[in-house]
């Protein structure tokens, strides 16, 4: 224990500074524990000439667990990640996987045809391929030179 003779005020300013420093350190230590939070599920978007592919990571789910809806240029995916029955009464050591219902709406770069959609779900990765309707596809315009 350090003794500082700082007059008779009774307040040890060095101890105060030390405490302030410890608290600042604690503040910055915690900053790393709460990283940026994203929406769920994380998606990647790929664009082709006249089609677009959306891939999403949804481990533990399969085709029947996800609800996909398409409207004009918006794709919505909805579902629920459940946890095992026995896990509810167990003692937890570590809990990192997210659980619960999710609903995500993704705006697409152009309108898509809901009848020309192919979706596959493999190993927990959902892949939705959507085509542009015929009428919307960009057309090459010939320029008349003179």
């Amino acid at each position, binding site marked *: 224990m350090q003794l500082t003779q700082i007059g008779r005020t009774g307040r040890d300013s060095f101890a105060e500074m030390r405490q302030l420093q410890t608290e600042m350190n604690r503040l910055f230590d915690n900053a790393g524990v709460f990283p940026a*939070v994203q*929406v769920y599920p994380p998606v990647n978007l790929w*664009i082709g000439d006249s089609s677009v*592919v959306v891939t999403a*990571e949804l481990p*533990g789910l399969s085709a029947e667990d996800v609800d996909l809806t398409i409207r004009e240029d918006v794709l919505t995916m909805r579902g629920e990640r459940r946890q095992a029955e026995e896990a509810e009464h*167990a003692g937890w050591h570590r809990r990192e*996987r997210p659980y619960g*219902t999710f609903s995500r709406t993704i705006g697409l770069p152009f309108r898509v045809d809901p009848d020309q959609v192919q979706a596959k779900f493999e*190993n927990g990765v959902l892949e939705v391929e959507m085509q542009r309707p015929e009428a919307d596809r960009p057309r090459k315009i010939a320029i008349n030179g003179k």
Partner: protein
Amino acid sequence: MAQEMTTTAKREVTPAERGEVTRSTVVYRPDTDIYETEDHVVLIADMPGVAPADVDVNLERRVLTIRGHVHRQAHDGYRRVHAEYGEGDYERVFTLSEEIDRDRIEASHKNGVLTLKMPKAESAKTRKITVKAA
């Protein structure tokens, strides 16, 4: 009980945490749940994109290593315009306690999720002790 879900970004395994590898891909730490029931310890790891054949579970003495290899999806003719997750292999290392019966560990992999069911050794199971009213 329904709740809105949010998740944190995938955590990458830094080169300092693992040894040098010959393949130069990004390696992620899979999110893992570990819980304990009366006679089992269950470990569940999220490894989306990994097929059951590409999972490697290795137990050496008390060190458990889980690895998953992802085959890169080649989207020919497409440009990636938005990415919220990266594609890469998975790896994570755990140290098991003495209580696990190492010969009876069951591993199963479905839809990108690896489940390890580890039975506790007989000596470690909790025993109820009856109290006699004297």
